[in-house]
Each structure stands twice: as structure tokens, then as C-alpha cells.
């Protein structure tokens, strides 16, 4: 009896997160290739309506667990519930996003299940013996490791933007299984007192399709407004180099690089970034890189697909205007 693929779905503001749609799309492709069932798991409160979205994106079955204790993610409660579901379902592999939740949940859950977990994977392949292999960056992308495990199930967190999203099919139906949450008392020790979301109209940095990023040449925090105008014109997130963050121009959460976030957008626009090795590690797997820098010798040009040697204070506003004109 072939075992299935399980995807732990994540919702934000009442919608499935983009990475969850990516996992369902890739899960569907793998399931079709290997003749497996694709099951989505939804944990939370008042989230049942998202089962239809998961179905349209390729799930054969959706397990829904609604409980007040699952409203906000906590390591313990989610581990408790998923441990039971996974033991019962006995899947071949469990995918989750390499998000704030996935990074925290996967190791705890893997330890409880007594299995291995592949963190922050960017590709999943099936080898000649039908075994899954995972490709994951090490040294923040300065190198890659191919990993595999004999233990089942395999847990894997997948980096956002690694898989393309299949167009949803609204006619697709899935079997919806409602389960009750059984949570061990020992798993309810940590209590979420408050969740603070910073309102932003821009996409989350690690999810974003386009990132506009600034370096030391931004000179101060105010000048980032130039990048924000460009970002808002093309629907991009804002990033920053370590030099810009260490100089106090931008908060740490915007930092891209080995000691910040690792990103893989479709388009990365580096403005006034020299291209230190630790920055290149964090954005080198972007599909397309544009560099704007005054210094023609800047290292960033060695990785950029397109470059303009020039003053970012002149080039960036022109770029914003040109995009406005072309996108109007």
C-alpha cells in the first residue's frame, strides 16, 4: 500500500499562505508521479472554509482540526495534534513551509516521531529507487547538500518561492475529515499572550516575488523612501544589506544574507550594495538579479544579470517613473 504525502497548511489573515499553495502544487506533482494521495492538514480556529482552497490546489483529502488552543501557533499544541495525525496517517513524507512556524515546529515534531527532518529545502527529487532526495542550502547558500533518510515519515521544511503554483481548479473536490484536537497537558505550558503584526501593504520578505534592497550607499534611513516608492510601484518587498542594518538605516528584520534572511525571489534589485560574500549567500539563488552601483568594480556585478553603473539617487527615481509609465 503506497503511503501518502501530507502537507501542513498555514494560514494568515484567513487565507492560505503562498508557501502552502506552493507545497500543495509540488505535492500534487509528486503524488501524481508516484501514485500517492495528497492530504492537507489545517489547524486553527474557524478555518474550515480553507479546505476548498486546498482542494482546488490539488489536495485529495483535507484534515481540519479546529480548536481554540490552535488559534495561535504554539510549539506544544501543534506538535501534540500533528504527532497524533501523522502516526495515524503514516505518510511517506510531511511537508511544511520553512516559515517562522515550520522552522520551530519541524524539529520538535521530528524528535517526537523519532525521525529526521530536512530543513529549508529548495528542491525535492525522486531518485532511481523511488526514494526522495532533498536539496538544501548550507552556509546560507554558499554550498548545497543533498540529503536523504531511511526513517519514515520524512519531515521537510521547504523554503518559500522554491516551487511554482499550479493554477487552481475550483471544480476539484476533496474529502474533508474533521478531527478533534487532543493535546497533552505537558504541551500546553507555553501561552501566547499577544500577537503583534506590523501592518504592511508590502509582501513578506521571504515570500516576495520581487525584492528591492539597499546597502551602505543608502546613507541613512530616510533615503530608503526612494526604494519604497520603487517597491510599491512593482509590488516588491524591501530588503537591506548587513552594512545598511548595522549602520542603523533599516531594522534587522529586513536584512538579507548569511546572518539575516535567505531569499529566492524572481527578481532582486540591489541598490548601492557592494556584494559582500555573506550578502551574496543570502540572495544568490534569486532567479534574476539587477544591480545599481556607482562602482563598476563592485562585486555585485559579478552575479547580476543586468547592471547599471550609476548613482542610485539618480537611477532609482528614474526607474520608478519608467515602471509607472510602462505599467500604467
Amino acid at each position, binding site marked *: 500500500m503506497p503511503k501518502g504525502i501530507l502537507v501542513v497548511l498555514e494560514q*494568515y489573515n484567513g487565507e492560505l499562505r503562498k508557501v502552502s499553495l506552493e507545497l500543495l502544487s509540488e505535492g500534487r506533482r509528486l503524488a501524481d508521479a508516484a501514485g500517492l494521495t495528497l492530504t492537507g492538514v489545517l489547524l486553527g480556529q474557524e478555518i474550515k472554509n480553507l479546505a476548498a482552497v486546498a482542494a482546488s490546489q490539488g489536495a485529495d483529502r483535507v484534515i481540519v482540526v479546529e480548536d481554540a488552543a490552535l488559534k495561535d*501557533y504554539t*510549539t*506544544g499544541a501543534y506538535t501534540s495534534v500533528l504527532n497524533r495525525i501523522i502516526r495515524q496517517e503514516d505518510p511517506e513524507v510531511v511537508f511544511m513551509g520553512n516559515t*517562522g512556524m515550520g*522552522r*520551530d515546529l519541524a*524539529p*520538535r515534531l*521530528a*524528535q*517526537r516521531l523519532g*525521525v*529526521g*527532518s*530536512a*530543513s*529549508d529545502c529548495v528542491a525535492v527529487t525522486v531518485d532511481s529507487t523511488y526514494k526522495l*532526495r532533498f536539496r538544501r542550502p*548550507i*552556509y546560507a547558500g554558499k*554550498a*548545497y*547538500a*543533498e*540529503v536523504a*533518510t531511511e*526513517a519514515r515519515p520524512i519531515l521537510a521544511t521547504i523554503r518559500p518561492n522554491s516551487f511554482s503554483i499550479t493554477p487552481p481548479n475550483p471544480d476539484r473536490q476533496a474529502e474533508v475529515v474533521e478531527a478533534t484536537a487532543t493535546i497533552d497537558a505537558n504541551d500546553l*505550558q507555553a*501561552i501566547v*499572550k*499577544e*500577537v*503583534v503584526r*506590523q501592518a504592511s501593504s508590502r509582501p513578506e520578505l521571504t515570500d516576495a516575488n520581487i525584492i528591492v534592497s539597499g546597502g551602505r550607499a543608502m546613507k541613512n534611513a530616510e533615503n530608503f523612501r526612494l526604494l519604497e516608492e520603487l517597491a510599491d510601484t512593482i509590488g516588491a518587498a524591501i530588503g537591506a544589506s548587513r552594512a545598511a542594518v548595522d549602520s542603523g538605516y533599516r531594522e*534587522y*528584520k529586513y536584512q538579507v544574507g*548569511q*546572518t539575516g534572511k535567505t531569499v529566492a525571489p*524572481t*527578481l532582486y534589485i540591489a541598490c548601492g550594495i557592494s556584494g*559582500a*560574500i*555573506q550578502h551574496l549567500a543570502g540572495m*544568490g539563488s534569486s*532567479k*534574476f538579479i*539587477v544591480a545599481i552601483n556607482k562602482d563598476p568594480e563592485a562585486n555585485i556585478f*559579478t*552575479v*547580476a*544579470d*543586468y*547592471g547599471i*553603473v550609476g548613482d542610485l539617487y539618480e*537611477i532609482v527615481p*528614474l*526607474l520608478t517613473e*519608467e515602471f509607472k509609465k*510602462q505599467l500604467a
Partner: protein
Amino acid sequence: MVCLKQTFDTEAKIVINSQGKIDSTGVNLIMNPYDEFAVEEGIRLKEKFGGEVTVLSMGGAKVNEVLRTALAMGADKAVAIQDPALEGSDEWVTAAVLAKAVQAIPFDIILSGRIAIDDGSSQVPTRLAEILSIPSVSSVTELKIEDKNATVTRDIDGGSEIIEVPLPAVITAQKGLNEPRYPSVAGIMKAKKKELKTLNLADLGLSAADSVTQGAKMKVLQVSLPPARQGGRLIQGEPAQAVADLVMALMKEAKVI
């Protein structure tokens, strides 16, 4: 108790040797940057509440160097776990071995970095908490302790959350938790006299052949360097023209917008 790891410097270039492994020859080794926040937080807790900070690391031949750095910062005792049989251990084995060492030392809280910048797996501290059956909170930017409870601020995607958790617990440090101190000259002198114990598998009641050390779950099949990116096209011309050409290239050639 602070668990830390020795890693390559962030400036290090990665080279793969003829055995297909990462070559550490000539690479400058540092304390994993996120572990510095954990060590600093441990020392601050000691300064506020008293007690003792023990730093623990499993690593290679030079692991004592980072432990000495932590002692010079102000930690009191250090334990190094070194055994050739542990080379290349996965997260499962590492957590199991650390748990063995931790269980022999009384602790109120375990601190560690949220991720190691080398393997980037961010699993070991959380696995350790599961083995010890205590709660864990990862990626913490603020830690307040009152009686036997901690109130922590944790980084989440697009914001933060405040969590209350009873101690003992495992807390992993995110940048922003504190500003790690540099070891002072006096600190470095004092560190030389502090206790640094080196344990091998036998000291922990383990062996190279038992189920703990043989229990690795993940196998690394291959390491490789990313495909080298080619520098592309420099767009020449007057700024306005260059920008127009760039936008056209992005929309028509690359089709990324």
C-alpha cells in the same frame, strides 16, 4: 546552560575537497553569531539573579577556542564534547549527545542561538527540549524572568508575539536580544583559570557503537557548490536611456515583471 557551536567565519569561502567534503583548511573559526547572543543573555541573567553559566559545545579539535571566548565573556564553566566518532553527526545524534551531557549538570534555563550559520538547520536546541520534556521557544528577541516563569518576545513572520512559559525551558536567541560584549583583557586572563572539561563518548556513558551514536536519521549524500552565476550585461548609456532599456529588458526579455 548555554549550548553553542563553532562555525566558519561569515567571510569564509566554501571549498569542496577531493573527498567531496567541505574543506576547513585555513578557514577562520568563530562562535556562531547567534550563539553569542545566547552567551551574553546567560551572563546577564547571572549578573541579575546569581547562579552560574555553563557553556557546552560539541565540536572538532578547536572547539575549546570558542568555549574560552565564552569564558572570557563571563561564563563560569565550560564543557567540550569531542570524539572522532561524532564527526558529521546529524541533528538527532547531536541532540541526544548534548542531552546526555546536560542531564549531568543542574540548570534553570537552556539558551542557544536560533540557527547555526553553517548547516542552517535550526533543529538541535528544539530537539534537545523535546528529549528533556521541557518547553521551547525559538527566535527570541526579549527575555524577562520572574520567579519560575519567562515572558519572551518571539519573532514571527511579519511581526512578533509575546509568550509566557514556565522554566526550565529552552530559549533560542535571535539578533536583537542583546548586544554581546567583547571579552575584556581581564576576562581573557581569568578565562585561562576557569574550568574547561573535555568529555568523550565514554565519559558520557556512550560508545561509538551504541544506538545513540549509530542512530543518525539524515544522511548527507553529496555536497556541491551552487552553479556559478555569470555576470550579465552592463547597460550603458545616459541614465534615462539606460533605465528605459533596463525596464524593457525586465519586462520583455526576462519577463519578470
